[in-house]
């Protein structure tokens, strides 16, 4: 009977891991990532996931003419560098952070509204280890009022 209880406890912990990961991701985005958007205001959208080294993610969003935007790719410290690109709908590269020392911030505005793709990839760790590193990655958008 004792063994069965032990197995159930282990299973319960395993079952709760995904939920705990999501909650940690929110807390991380709120406490750490939002601060980096200043002086832009966070738009309020929550786009975050647990990614493992070598994994990638894409986000589709329309950006509007006349608005000032900041994209901030926020990853937990444990993760290796994160590559990110901004592409148009035909996948032409408009920005690549590898040409900018893996900067995680990009500020931009637009002459005409566009649907863009934010593509990111967690690089593989250079250190050889048995375990793959995972962590929260959030794609945050800041907007700024024009004060003209």
């Amino acid at each position, binding site marked *: 009977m004792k063994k069965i209880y032990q197995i159930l406890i282990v299973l319960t912990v395993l079952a709760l891991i995904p939920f705990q990961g999501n909650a940690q991701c929110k807390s991380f985005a709120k406490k750490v990532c939002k601060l980096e958007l200043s002086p832009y205001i966070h738009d309020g959208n929550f786009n975050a996931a647990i990614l493992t080294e070598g994994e990638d*993610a894409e986000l589709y969003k329309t950006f509007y003419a006349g608005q000032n935007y900041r994209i901030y790719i926020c990853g937990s410290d444990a993760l290796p560098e994160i590559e990110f690109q901004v592409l148009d709908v035909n996948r032409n590269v408009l920005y690549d952070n590898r040409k900018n020392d893996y900067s995680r911030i990009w500020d931009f505005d637009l002459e005409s509204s566009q649907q863009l793709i934010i593509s990111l990839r967690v690089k593989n760790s250079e250190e050889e280890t048995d375990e793959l590193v995972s962590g929260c990655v959030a794609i945050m958008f800041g907007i700024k009022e024009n004060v003209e």
Partner: protein
Amino acid sequence: MDIKSLHCKALCFLAVVVSALIITGCGSDKNKNKDSEEEVVIESLEIDEQLIKDVKTVKEIFYSLPSPLETAMILKQSGAVYNEELLNPTENVANYVTNKSMALNLGVYTTDLSYASLFDQTQATINYMNASKKMAEGLGILNAIDENIIERLEANINNRDVIMDIISETIMNSSSFFEENDRQAMSTIVLVGGWVEGLYIATNLVGPDVDLNNNELVNRIIDQKLTLSTVVSLLEENKDNEDVITVMTNVNELKAIFEKIEITTSKIEPVTDDETNVTTLKSKTEVKMKPETYYELKEKVKIIRNNFTL
């Protein structure tokens, strides 16, 4: 009933709960990826085969709609004025008792809240925060809008930056709550409610004498054709939900009208200002839209919005 039998029953119950947790925990991600892959294939058909190949290997796909805060900023930036008569009266909160109507009107009210706050309407800001709070409570979103937030709002009512931050936090708490609790369908309905409210306010602020070919607000309304594909993708991802299906019918009616509008864009050229480090994406857009299409769109938005709020 002896102790041994009680133990057995408790064990069985625990085993079922834990198994369900494991299955949903693992399954939700898997399904999400599967849906995303299927969705991307549909989206990409119009672009090219290589794109399908590239996207199919992507682990996570996000579709992001303009948040209520961004919608309000777009409205203001396009020269909109404040008109409280266009907002959904806060007295209507008592009418919303189903999950679908509360989710739609959480989106509607947070857009109204953002719009009122950007135009420094202090009393309306508090009223719409309270209305949003009631919708959030009805949906079981614990702590998204707690008493503390209302108090902070009242204490900082003349500080625009703090107000914006509180609204942004409220929107984030709601959307992340749905994500964490595997209720993406509700999150999508909230966003669609807010998006339709933005369209309703915008179309009603365009005066009858406006030149439809040369007006910033009309341009931003037309731009919603670009956002529409994201709205459709989000809804498609959650089409196993009954409430999403009915919202989808409304969105498809809008899609049929938006398809009559032609938008062509030149190649985008990114130009970075070395001093500010801000990049401008330079491009030109050409729009072909008949006036009757615009008025058809305005009428349809009104019908759908009234359907959401009445």
